[in-house]
């Protein structure tokens, strides 16, 4: 359960992480492995946040934040997913599944909010165009600061709405949860690693000897798995 006291810091952090995706400073604080861990830490269970973040990070490897394309907004979304997964102090079966599901669903909604913001920035830019054509410093600075502020507000609103909508749903689902941890986490791991593996192969298989690099890494990975 996310209480009112935690809602404010989560919303403020959601604003910063939402802005980091595109506007400022693009330091990848918004990557799921960071954002969900922070969400878990703020909610009281950092380990659950990290676990949620690792799964979301693997899924996010498929979506490159390339220019004009519409891609999921993982920053605020992962914070919400990590916070919901970490909200019970003791990790309950199903908590990570619900956290990851909420993270993906919110990231999808976030992609539409970014699209809307870009359209809004376009409207503002069109209005500022006559002044910018005269070299108005005020017009350039105003447009930039308006865009940055709007993106912060977008991230904050997305985080707040997602927390308000998903918290009761999450509580209900976790109270009814029946599938065992091994089964539910196996599904999560398979989905995440499958999506990440497919995405990496699509992006990088053009390199000479690519399958041997992948295979070499896998042999070492399995070896480490056996010995550790």
């Amino acid at each position, binding site marked *: 359960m996310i209480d009112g006291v935690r809602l404010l810091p989560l919303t403020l952090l959601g604003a910063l992480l939402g802005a980091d995706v*595109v*506007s*400022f400073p*693009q*330091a*990848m*604080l918004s990557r799921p*492995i960071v954002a969900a861990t922070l969400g878990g830490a703020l909610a009281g269970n950092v380990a659950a946040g*990290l*676990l949620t973040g*690792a799964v979301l*990070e693997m*899924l*996010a*490897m498929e*979506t*490159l*934040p390339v220019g*004009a394309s519409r891609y999921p907004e993982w920053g605020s979304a992962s914070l919400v997913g990590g916070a919901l997964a970490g909200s019970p102090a003791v990790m309950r079966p*199903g908590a990570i*599944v619900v956290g990851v*599901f909420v993270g*993906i669903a919110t*990231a*999808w909604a976030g992609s539409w909010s970014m699209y809307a913001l*870009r359209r809004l920035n*376009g409207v503002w*830019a069109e209005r500022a165009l006559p002044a910018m054509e005269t*070299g108005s410093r005020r017009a*350039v*600075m105003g447009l*930039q600061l308006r865009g940055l502020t709007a993106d912060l507000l977008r991230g904050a609103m997305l985080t707040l709405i997602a927390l308000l909508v998903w918290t009761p749903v999450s509580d209900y*689902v976790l109270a009814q*949860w*029946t599938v*065992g941890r*091994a089964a*539910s*986490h*196996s599904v999560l*791991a*398979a*989905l*995440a*690693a*499958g*999506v*990440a593996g*497919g*995405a*990496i*192969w*699509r992006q990088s298989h053009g390199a000479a000897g690519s399958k041997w690099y*992948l295979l*070499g*890494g896998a042999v*070492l*990975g399995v070896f*480490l*798995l056996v010995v550790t």
Partner: protein
Amino acid sequence: MITPDRAPTAIAPPLSWSARVAVFTRMFAVQGSWNYELMLGPGIAFCAEPALRELPGGPDGPAYHQALAREARYFNAHPYLAAVAIGALVRAELEGRPAPQIERFRIAMCGPLGSLGDRLVWAGWLPFCSLVALLAFGLHASPIVVVILFLVLYNVGHIALRAWGVATGWRSGLRVAASLGTPLLQRGPKYLARAVLFLAGLALPLAIARVIGRRGLEITSHDWQIALPAAALLAIGLAALLVRLPARVEGWRAALVVLAVLILTSIAR
């Protein structure tokens, strides 16, 4: 149009340290007003503005206003490598280069700075750093180690690339295209692709194992022996399927559907 009052030289014109610092700092917000019409254009003007104040006549002079208007027009590039264009454009403006020459440069730089940045950063450096973090996660590093390792590693490359970009642009001016042929930029994506593949093979099995959770007795040994190979086989099958499907079929959307079914099944039982 600005009338050049100084002939272009091989030596960069003087630029105060405060302007250099302001330009560099503002580059972190270059996409602050990103939109489909002008894309990065207003952001380029926003970043270049502190340096343009040093044009003859200062911030109230016609040279400043004309240069700022030019820099606010349409421009597109990778946000980190836009630093190269910003450095070069600031120098060109301070040298008093003719407006058509600056306009041609802006048009010519959009494509190379976009595609090079996408290959080097989004398809190379970012997945590399993500996989290093997942490897640390798979090796049971603590949350703080995983997060700090990722952020420090990624941002060393990120900030270095921006700093190199603006310095190279400033040093070379409108001849900066030759600097994009540097071996690091040309061969970097290839080397990174190999490293990413190796790291994927290494990190993903360990990450799967930690997600399923053997340590801390989260699940029984018997369950573990069934769950891990099953998850690994499913992951390999899913990856092979996604590679064969058209690129528009995205795995994260499929994951959303599968998890919805899992949740509904769990609460309906």
